[in-house]
């Protein structure tokens, strides 16, 4: 069966520090991969999505970047965090655009 792993669950980082959040999927090949951010009590903002290795589409210009070094690995990074980067980050995958998405449990990032 397919599973998605996202870690860490919580993270507190100082302003100006780097960030690396990792997401891996098991049990499927060539998934579509997504990074979303959710502000408290709000909806999900699509940050990046990827349809294949090295193929990254950015939805919102910002202080973050994403990479897909392997088929089932999706990484969200920042060189220097801002206070506004705080939020709940969710990774998700789907088989293709016409099917349901499966979400990780999320990472609560607090930039202090």
């Amino acid at each position: 069966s397919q599973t998605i792993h996202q870690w860490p669950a919580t993270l507190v980082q100082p302003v100006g520090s780097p960030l690396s959040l990792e997401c891996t999927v098991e049990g499927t090949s060539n998934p579509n991969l997504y990074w979303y951010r959710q502000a408290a009590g709000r909806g999900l903002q699509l940050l990046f999505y990827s349809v294949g290795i090295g193929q990254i589409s950015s939805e919102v210009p910002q202080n973050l970047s994403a990479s897909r070094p392997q088929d089932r690995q999706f990484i969200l990074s920042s060189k220097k965090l801002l206070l506004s980067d705080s939020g709940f980050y969710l990774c998700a995958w789907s088989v293709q655009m016409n099917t349901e998405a499966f979400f990780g449990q999320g990472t609560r990032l607090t930039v202090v």
Partner: protein
Amino acid sequence: SQQGEEDPQALSIQEGENATMNCSYKTSINNLQWYRQNSGRGLVHLILIRSNEREKHSGRLRVTLDTSKKSSSLLITASRAADTASYFCAGGGFQGAQKLVFGQGTRLTINP
């Protein structure tokens, strides 16, 4: 900007009553999906309705889709306290792209 907008933003009803949430979207989609999110957790897929379908059922869930009005509704019948969560709609295949765009969500509270 978000393509899905849920209405109402918050809904509080008594256990046993039916809960109806609405979703509107702005551009053409291939499918419309509904998700549930318990506080501080990832999203869980509930149901998907394709653009050529008008109504779909799954257990106590009933989803309708009106592509002429670019709107969808989610009905939860015989609500239970465990249904308390946030519910999100998401448009799939937005403009043919491989991404899933979410609305702001409806916060549903079921009072025992």
